[in-house]
């Protein structure tokens, strides 16, 4: 269950590269390549520095002109997509 204190990280088999503001994530073991847009890249960058979900949403709120309810809903939905795609996993402890 994701809450404001949950911290995610990129999975070890997901190789991420920022190209021209967009991201490529390659999961070679399963033969998948995924392209992230600029927002997706920003979320992944914030997850990579270990920001809990709550802080991540706060950071994005300062960067994007969007109401807080929409922002939180969209970010949580996107993190779930990243989980489902096998790009990130919740850090334990």
């Amino acid at each position, binding site marked *: 269950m994701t809450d404001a204190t949950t911290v995610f990280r990129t999975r070890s088999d997901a*190789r991420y590269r920022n190209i021209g503001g967009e991201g490529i994530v*390659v999961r070679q073991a399963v033969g*998948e*390549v*995924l392209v992230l847009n600029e927002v997706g890249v920003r979320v992944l960058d914030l997850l990579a520095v270990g920001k809990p979900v709550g802080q991540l949403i706060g950071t994005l709120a300062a960067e994007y002109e969007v109401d807080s309810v929409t922002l939180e809903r969209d970010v949580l939905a996107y993190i779930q997509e990243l989980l489902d795609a096998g790009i990130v996993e919740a850090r334990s402890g």
Partner: protein
Amino acid sequence: MEGGAIVNDQLGGKATAAKPRDATAPMTFGESYLAVPDLFPARQSGEPWGPERIVLHFAGNAYVCEGLSPNQATGLRAKFGSLARDTLDGPRPAVVVRIFRVASSDFVVDEREWEFEFDLDYARDALGVAGFHMMARLDFVPRLSAALWTSEDDLLVERSIFENLLRIVVAYHMLEQGGVLLHSAGVADERGARVFFGPSGAGKSTIARLGIASRRSVLSDDMNALRLERGALVVEKLPFSGDFGGSADAVQGFFPVRGLYRLEKGAAYATRTLRPASAIAALLECAPFVNRNPFRYEELMRNLEDLHERAPVQVLTFAPNESAWEGLEARHVPSQVA
């Protein structure tokens, strides 16, 4: 705020004649093909099939094939024609491919029809290959070389055992030289060549046929080598079978790249430029044998980024008629950065 978008593509790594087995299948390396996978050779040694030696010249390089039997040498000369010579020439070091003889009992014996799938085993300094009546290894240190162990004499060429290994060797050789082997169709005229890539069924053979109908020449509709020749991006046909691989319409030599196009199905002619990340992801999808190697990932991505700098990728959809080439010529934008 728009949520982040994820676009899935597949690293198919598929070749026309042979393809890597699905990595998600719960198998260890070679167990479908090798009687005793643990005895996979740790180095390039064994009993040669014979004393014959042939040098294959293409893609700006030479590939020395040693240890061939007379039958195998005859088969290779017939298949590769003028590309097969007895001597080395040119400044670049050759890649040596050694052919060794093993017993048929070294391989899994069953009633399967001949298969063109194979297993790949990735390591930092080597690559293992196991397939139907063959096993091979590529060693990258101190320089690229390869060894093939097979129980087949005549069938080395007839069943494309040698060709399938050579595709892999060339893929890694191109990588080391700053280029990439691309599952693609190349179509050339006197000004250069356009390269069309995409998944199976996207239209590579169709655009190649339309090119011939408009009096152009096809390099290959299966695999082409993109590489640097004196600092310029060129494309060269590889002598591997495709619909046009052995036809009289196929040309030899290398050509400057006029454009890189990812093919997508559509009803009418249209082009759009891909953003860099999507372009490189699309190229990655069509770089067989190397795109799933975790030890060569950084090298491959650097090459693809460099390639994209030189020739930005456009998406092309087209109707299967002559308007495709009319559209390409009418809207041509020089692709290479000076």
